[in-house]
């Protein structure tokens, strides 16, 4: 087993239940009716990219496509808009997952920023072709916020895998 510079410890295998629950939780968070704000970070895209990087054999483009359709229906957007953008995100994340995990979490964040930027550009392009309005410059904030949330997502979503394999009195978790 190779210990990479970005990681201090070996991780336990992921629990599929936790993984899918986190995805559904992200869908729930993305569905919170917080009004129409273009700068709102897309938590679901973040979690999809996260699991595509860390578990590319389990969460792939099919899941991304399905969750994208759910977002389209919820936002009453063009059916397939989020699906396309999430599929592309997942593809790029799978392409870069071997390289990305060699870096520390803080260095990973600027590398996933172009992914989120691209996904928002895809959505914007689709809506401009379909005849929508420009949501304003605040939509540039969304990818930056998503990239900024990457370290937090890494800490939270990898926490169950960081438990010690043999708990004792000194290491209960």
């Amino acid at each position, binding site marked *: 087993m190779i210990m990479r510079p970005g990681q201090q410890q070996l991780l336990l*295998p992921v629990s599929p239940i936790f993984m899918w629950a986190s995805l559904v939780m992200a869908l729930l968070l993305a569905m919170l009716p917080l009004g129409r704000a273009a700068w709102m970070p897309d938590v679901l895209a973040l979690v999809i990219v996260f699991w595509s990087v860390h578990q590319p054999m389990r969460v792939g483009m099919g899941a*991304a496509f399905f969750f994208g359709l*759910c977002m389209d229906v919820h*936002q*009453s957007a063009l059916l397939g808009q989020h*699906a396309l953008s999430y599929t*592309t995100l997942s593809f790029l994340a799978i392409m870069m997952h071997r390289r990305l995990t060699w870096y520390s979490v803080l260095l990973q964040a600027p590398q996933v920023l172009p992914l989120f930027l691209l996904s928002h550009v895809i959505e914007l392009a689709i809506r401009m072709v379909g*005849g929508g309005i420009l949501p304003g410059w605040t939509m540039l904030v969304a990818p930056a916020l998503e990239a900024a949330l990457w370290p937090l997502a890494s800490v939270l979503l990898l926490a169950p895998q960081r438990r010690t394999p043999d708990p004792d009195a000194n290491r209960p978790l």
Partner: protein
Amino acid sequence: MSLGTLDRSTPPLFNQGPSALSKLIFFSALALFLMVADARFNVVRPIRLAIGTVLYPVQWLALKPVQAVAEGGRYLEELQLAQRKEAEARRALALQSERAGQADVLASENARLRALLELRQTTSTPGRAAEVLYDSADPYTRKVVIDQGVAQGVVAGSPVIDPSGVVGQVTLVQPFTSEVTLVIDRDQAIPVQNMRTGARSVAFGDANAHGGGLELRFMAANSDVQEGDLLATSGVDGVYPAGLPVARIERIERRADSGFARIYCQPLGDVNAARYVLVLTPVGGQGSAAAHPAAASASAAAAASAATTPKAAATVVPGAPAPSATTAAVAPAAAVAKRTPPARATRPANPVASPTPAVPAPSAPAARPRTPERRATP
């Protein structure tokens, strides 16, 4: 598996299924197909309804904490503020009760006069109250979701009003919720009548304006409009009942280089913060259940072409006895389908030279003007 994990099962080394690129191509093609089918051919509505039904519990769950916070905020509202609001509401009620008393008298008088003139009787419009659940988060459109759906008998195309005016129109009905496209949405058009002059025209959504507004298009630069004019629904579209307040003209730009004035209006309905709304039954849908998708936008376009002057508007309907009777006569039983072709397609190529700016879509032959019209010169 990624190298960071200690998995107990051996990863499949050789049989990994289709490559990532081929999967990407497959899903992108599928997404593109869905988008085209959704935007142009309107055939994916069952998929949307199915996903919407499955998602409804999740949406309900997501709604609860936000509603709880809002309720808590209102619970902690100051007593003074609540008392002031109550006083305002009582004042408004007193004002309205006086007008309501007059309205009964006027309605009976109007019915007698209409019978005398052998005009068609106007229909009353039943409505149902609904609560706005949330603003749709899509920043490219202006839509809200209300808590009434197919189960409560809402039909697509229904006008939605609040106490101060028209808010929008139901464009998609889910089993328990409905999407309302606000009048300020870019693709939403509403036939209006200037209450001061009686001139008919069509107001288009202008979401880019500050907070969202409407724009009155295809009005000649020398037409009789003033800032502060009240625009109400004209009723010629067969969807909206006549006489609902829509907007007030805020700013008029008359440009030398254009044959048309740019007229910006402010919606009267509380499009950004309405909490309780009234969903009316579409006028055309009351008699027959027939609904032609996209016919309403076509009739709106026809009204735009005919409404440059009130005189020209009378030519819209062959056989109509008087302009005032067109309300019930046109009625193409229209329900605006979701995502009808954008109204900007009706913009004329050369606004000065072309007197008939909007070519009606072929799906509404009844609303087509009989003769090509002259340039409107008042």
